[in-house]
């Protein structure tokens, strides 16, 4: 659907956002947001992983490649990792990925990194809604490449 929309004419278009979340904090937080009936944009597809350090940068690249317009990566706050140090390692990798994506011309607002704890249903709602809104503003990701999968 994203292909049919002219850039700048986004009102008919709604972004696809993929969220990679950790099993222990963010997923539980997202669950809390759901059971608390917090109103969230329906654009986000959640993929649950054991830990934020399980998020291989390739997951994010692949998500964009296969049609995502925005990505959320989220896990436990530092110090709270179920595996003690996973998110400290993840943080270093995300830092470099964050910089590199910008250097390669991916708008910073397309990728949200967030720590969301199991009790932060409200924060998850915020992350979802704000990310969706920002990506909505930016428009489809690389629309020219989505049509036929690339060069002939």
């Amino acid at each position, binding site marked *: 659907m994203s292909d049919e929309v002219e850039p700048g004419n986004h009102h008919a278009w709604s972004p696809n956002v993929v969220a990679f979340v950790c099993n222990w904090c963010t997923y539980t937080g997202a669950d809390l947001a759901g059971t608390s009936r917090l109103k969230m944009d329906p654009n986000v597809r959640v993929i649950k992983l054991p830990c934020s350090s399980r998020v291989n*940068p*390739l997951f994010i*690249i*692949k998500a964009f*490649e296969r049609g995502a317009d925005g990505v959320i990566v989220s896990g436990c706050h*530092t*110090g709270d990792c179920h595996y003690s*140090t996973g998110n*400290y*390692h993840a*943080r*270093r*990798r*995300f*830092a*470099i*990925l*964050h*910089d*590199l994506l*910008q*250097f*390669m*011309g*991916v*708008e*910073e607002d397309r990728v*949200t*990194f*967030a*720590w969301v704890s199991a009790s932060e249903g409200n924060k998850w709602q915020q*992350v979802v809604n704000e990310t969706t809104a920002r990506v909505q503003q930016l428009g489809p990701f*690389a629309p020219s*490449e989505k049509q036929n*999968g*690339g*060069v002939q």
Partner: protein
Amino acid sequence: MSELQETARKLLSEGTVSVVIGYEEGPRGVRPAFITAPAQADKLIFDTRCVQNLATYLNPRRKQVAQLGRAAVVVKGCDARAVAGMIREKQIERGNVVILAMRCGGVLQNPETNSELTTQTVSVRCGGCTVREPKLFDHLLGELPPEPPVNTHRVEQIAALMKMSSSERWTFWTEQLSRCIRCHACREACPMCFCVKCTAEKSQPQWIDSSSTPQANRAWQTMRVLHQAGRCVDCLECERACPEHIPLGLLARYVADSVERRFEYTASDDPTVPAPIGVYRTDDDEEFIR
């Protein structure tokens, strides 16, 4: 006979090593030499045309080089960082290699030109070099030449790119990477690419499509440069090997800058200094995380 030739001859004749990997005068400029007899040691040279990172030949994937036996390798300070990297990552043992480190005053960006080092001709990676006198060595050779001139070409290119808008940068990289034919020459020439099976060759699942498409090319180069974060020694072998002349050095340098800024780490020729990815500090910067 130069100090280098003399040392090599001695190492070979005393049987300390079976092969000295160095530089020699080839049919078209300088090329790598694999000296196995003491009498051939006088072939060895070292000058500003010795651009290639010979540490690559210590990479455990080079089985046929390993078969020659214990090796001594001629390195510049920058190349010594690759040797350190391989020791750090347990690919080679420090005791199994003799490091002939050359004091270096910079090399040419394009060794075919064989000209004086100027701000135009010197390699973009030589500016501000901190390892002109390598610290990782068994033999430290040569006189210390003066500091090389600074070629600001790459720094300026990166700065110019960062001044662009996101979409302009996107267009720039899309154009550059559209030329990538996915031959993976960048990987094969890289001293720090030693994975037994590269992600790009894994097919179950196929993370990175093997065809040259904009998405797959971008995924490949992004993955590669990320995997090199904090490991890349900026020897520019990838860029030199690329048959499509893609400015891979820009990506490498940008990531190295980012690593330096965030983790206060520059590629080190000390194998005991841990690489920045794999360790952490609890107070690492997280301004980008909400």
